[in-house]
Structure formats: C-alpha cells, structure tokens
C-alpha cells in the first residue's frame, strides 16, 4: 500500500510522508507543531495501511527517543518537527550520533527565534542542525527546494542514515511544507533503497568495530549478540570506558565517517554557472526566487549563476574552494541573519567577495530584491 509510481500533486509535507513510506519507514513518533503537523497527520493515516505504527508522544524528546528505540528494534523510523521542537530534540540527536543510530528528523523551519511566527517561513536553524547538541559530532543535513526534492531527498535521507548510521536532518522550510507541486514517483526498480549492514558473523563480533568505511555493522536485537548500547564513551565492545584515548579514537571515527565521505554525501545543483562571474548561493525555498532572478539578470546581460545547496552538512568546502577562483562575488541569500554565509566565507577565504542578503524571517526574498543586488554587484 505504499505509493504506486506515477504523478501526484503533493504538498511538501505530504511528499516527505509518502517518500518515507516508500523508503521503508514503518514507525513515526511525533508531536504536533506548525508547520509540519500535516506530515504527522498523513503518517497517522498511512502507516497502519502499510503495517506500520504511528504514535503521538507527549513531547518532542519522547518522539525522537522513541524513533531511536525503534531503529534499534530494526525499523526505519522518523520524526518531524519545527524550531521549538527541534531545540528540544538536541540532546537526543547527540545520543543518536554517539550510538550510531540511523534516524531521519525532518525539521521544517519557521521564523524564529522562540515561538516567532509559526506559520511563516524561516531558515534560522541551519547552524543549529549541525551544532545544536553538545560535544563534537557530525550529522548530515539535506535541504530540498521543491516538492519533488522533498520527495527524492527524503528517500536519500533514509539511505544516508542507514549507510552511515547517523541521524539525517531533512532541513525543510515552511514555504515548502505548504507548497503543492507535481511529484513524479519512480517505479520500484528506479528506486534505490539502502539498508544498514548487518554483522557478518556472531563469533567475536565487536559491535563498535568499524569496517574500512568507518561504519560498524549494526546488530539486530534478539539474536544473541548480547550487545550493549551506551551514550557514554565506549570501546569497540560497546562497554563504557572512561579513557581519553578511547574517546579520541571513538569520537574521531564518528566524525571522520562523515567527513571522509563528503564526496558521497554532498549534492549541489548549479544553474547557469558555466560562464558566471557572480553567483547567488541559496538553499531551500529561496532557490526558487533565485532561479527567477538569475533568468532576469541574464536578460540584462549580467553573467549570474546560482549555487543551490542540497546538502548543507557536511558543508561542501571543497566545492566552494574550487569554484571561488572563477567567481568575483558570492551573494548568500538566506532567511536568517547570516549562517551559511559564514561557511562560504570560511571556505573561500579572501578569494572572492562574499555578501550576505539576509531576511529575518516571515517572507522569501523576492526575485526583484535578488535582481537588485545582482545588478548592483555586477558592475
């Protein structure tokens, strides 16, 4: 009963829900919050149809802990929330990172901080997605810019989380969650589904001994592995071990398993970048007015292009380093007071001018605003 291939007219929220089911998600635990409640509502209706379970927990902490538990129980699992709930989930995101639990967390960004404007768009949680929990850890964060991408990237989110045993954040925004667009659902054989690797043999199995890809196989429960999972610093057996050297090797591996696979993880879309000397950098729904602005600028003979970040974390440092020599000015358009722009600056150094075009929240940049700055900077 998961979706038949074909064309659908979905909102971003709906697309994520349906893609999750196709990716194999069979458990959703969540707590209502604008602007993503419809995602949970669809899951509540759809999960029983595919043999899965929906549970509304008492809060967001309970929600994410329940999906972490379910993931260890063998189910692909997700939750969805927005700023206030995402903030509450931070402790548990660190726990999932530390225990290498595959989960998908959809965070639909609204205008913050605090309660802010619940029904209006924001992009203020980009840094939080990477840094919101304590201690050094890595996650993956993907940012779709159309309903089709909501769909595709949800499947990718599950795949990456299973492959790297890491929490994957689907960093949506309010505009997308409530935007309806056409979605093409691929056929079963076009669909790529990745599942976590299982231990090859039980004897001498060390639950936290990684393979060459730095990812350890994940043992199933109830089959006699007798493994222990802990958020304390642990050795390869999974036993707590309070020793700076154990910490050094565990934490380095947890981070490196993502950092060393940047090339596999990072996806970037570019538009008219071949001959561009000025570029807009955007992500999420801001990509849409940006495309329009690039088109308008080209009509005015401005050689502008667009860099649309589909993967935000790990940050595509190398991409920016490489491209920076060809570009005079990067304009980072984001609905916050400067987050991705810091990363771009760090990656590029002094090799090009980097400008921030911020919005505090509540509205997208208009194509005209973007065109204005392109025109101003192009000359």
């Amino acid at each position, binding site marked *: 009963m998961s979706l038949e291939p074909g064309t659908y007219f979905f909102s971003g929220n709906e697309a994520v829900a349906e893609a999750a089911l196709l990716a194999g998600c069979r*458990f959703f635990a969540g707590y209502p919050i604008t602007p993503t409640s419809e995602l949970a509502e669809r899951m509540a209706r759809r999960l029983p149809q595919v043999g899965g379970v929906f549970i509304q927990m008492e809060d967001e902490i309970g929600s994410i802990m329940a999906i972490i538990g379910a993931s260890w129980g063998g189910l692909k699992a997700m939750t969805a929330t927005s700023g206030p709930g995402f903030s509450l989930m931070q402790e548990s995101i660190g*726990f999932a990172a530390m225990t290498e639990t595959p989960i998908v967390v959809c965070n639909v960004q609204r205008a913050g901080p605090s309660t802010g404007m619940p029904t209006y768009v924001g992009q203020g949680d980009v840094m939080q997605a990477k840094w919101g929990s304590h201690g050094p850890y890595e996650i993956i964060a993907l940012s779709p810019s159309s309903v089709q991408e909501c769909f595709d990237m949800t499947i990718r989110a599950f795949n990456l989380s299973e492959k790297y045993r890491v929490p994957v954040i689907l960093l949506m925004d309010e505009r997308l969650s409530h935007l309806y667009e056409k979605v093409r659902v691929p056929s079963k054989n076009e669909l790529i589904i990745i599942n976590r690797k299982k231990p090859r043999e039980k004897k001498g199995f060390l639950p936290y001994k990684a393979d060459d890809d730095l990812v350890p196989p994940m043992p199933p429960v109830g089959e006699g592995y007798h*493994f222990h999972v802990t958020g304390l610093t642990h050795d390869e057996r999974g036993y707590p071990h309070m020793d700076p050297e154990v910490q050094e090797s565990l934490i380095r591996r947890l981070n490196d398993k993502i950092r060393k696979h940047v090339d596999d993880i990072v996806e970037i879309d570019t538009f008219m970048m071949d001959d561009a000397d000025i570029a807009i950098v955007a992500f999420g729904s801001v990509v849409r007015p940006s495309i329009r602005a690039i088109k308008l600028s080209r009509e005015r003979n401005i050689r502008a292009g667009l860099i649309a970040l589909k993967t935000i974390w790990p940050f595509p440092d190398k991409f920016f380093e490489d491209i920076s020599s060809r570009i005079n000015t990067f304009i980072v358009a984001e609905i916050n007071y400067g987050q991705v722009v810091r990363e771009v600056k760090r990656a590029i150094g002094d090799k090009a001018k980097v400008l921030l075009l911020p919005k505090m929240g509540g509205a997208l940049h208009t194509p005209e605003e973007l065109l204005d700055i392109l025109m101003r900077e192009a000359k």
Partner: protein
Amino acid sequence: MPMQFVKYHVRDKYLKTDRLPHIWCPGCGIGSILNAFLLGLEKANIDPDKLLVVSGIGCTGRVAGYLNMDTFHTTHGRAIPFAIGLKIARPDMHVVVFSGDGDLVTIGGNHFIHAARRNNDLLVILVNNLNYGMTGGQVGATTPHNAITTTTPYGNIEDDFNIPFLAAAAGAVYVARWTSLHVRRLAWSIAEAFHRKGFRLIEVISQCPTTFGRRNKMPNGLDMLKWFRDNTIVKHNADLRETRIELNRKIVIGKFIDIKDKPTFEEQAYGLVEKVRGVKRGE
C-alpha cells in the same frame, strides 16, 4: 563443610562478568535488586534472548551494562520513550526498563505517566534510593521531607512523590513496591509481572549508603537494610493515599494493583493495522 571458594557464580550466565566488579559502592542495594531480577527472570522462565533491557542514566542506570543480553543505556530520563519505540518495533520481545527514581520520575516523570496512561507494554523496575546517587547525593522527587542531602543542607522542604499512587492515577495496570531487603518477594513479583502485559511498575526502595545514608544517620548499607526491616509493613491492595514515604513512618510495601485485561498500546496499534488492512500482520 567449609566455604567453597569458586570462580563463577550461579547467575554469571546472565552477566557480562568481564565487567565485574561493578561500579556500585560496597553496601549499595542495586546489586541485590539486579540479583533478584535475575532470579525473577528465571522463575518466570523468560528466555534472555527474548528480553531487552533499557536503562537511563544514574547508578541504577548502569544495570543494563552488566547484563549479558541486548541492553541499552540511554539518556537521563528517556529510558521509557526509547523502550516504547523498541517494544513497538519488536512486540514479540519482553522490554524491561530498569532505572533510578530520579531518572524515571523526576526528569523522566512525564514519560512515566504517559506510558502508564497509554498502557505501553513495559515492565518498569524503579530503584528508589531516595536521592540522586550518581551525581553525589542531591535531593530528588523521592527524597522524604526533612531529609538531608547535598542540595537540602537544612533539610528537604519539599514532599516526595507517592510513586504507586502516581502510577495508579496515570493508569498503570500492575503496581508493587518492595525494598532491597525483600529480595525474594521482589523476585516473585518480577516473575509475576513478566506474565502480565501493559505498563507494569515495581518500585524497589533501596539503600544508597554513600550519599543518602551517610547524611541521614545510616552510613552503611547494613544500617539502611535494618531500617527497611524495622520500618516496612506489607499491605497488599493498600489505600494508595497512604503509601507516601516519610522518615518517621512505616513504609507500606506489597502489591497494590493488578489489572489483567486492559489492552496494551501495542495490541491496539497492531490491531489497527489489521483493521485498516483487513489482514493479519506480516501478510
């Protein structure tokens, strides 16, 4: 016949013996409770491979790490929601939550009452040592009025929770309370509870000589066990308004609630799958 010195213990098969000795202080009650748990497991005839144990953070939270089973040491206060997800994923397994009072009813109190309300199918062993052991003996929601702790140097001005009453009010189907001295009854109670379903709570009053006892005139484990011996009264089906723990009153122990037929969350959730799909699960 003199004492037989040996290398292995009868319960060793359940334990990660390479991790012994455990970190618990000499005279701590957690080891006895763990011991009773294993006896209960045996009595109930539960296959350890069909059992998942989840702990939170705290001295008691370390229980999971010593069991030679699939076990989970989660975050502080969140053992129950983790266990909820785990149980839903594997409704065929027994899921036990084994953790401290601070973990389960102070920071984790909300998950506790909601899981009881929903009747999530979990057996919860709550070790109530009347304070926060792991962090050095601060007051908890279970510390009796007037008791001295590191954060109540002038005596506790708060009242403590009456945990059985709270659990019952929230909807728990099995509620019992024992102490770390009443290990045999505890083991029987655990065995019985394994054969119930839904949200089951067994509170075990335990001694923490190191941080609680020391400040309350019972510096050794033995002092506290004697206190339990002399200050408990078994009263099955007691009126739960009378079961709060006070320093100068008898502690009521016993089995208070035992409801057998309330459907669990998991039964209903998978029942919904069948209803909606019109087929049995797995088909």
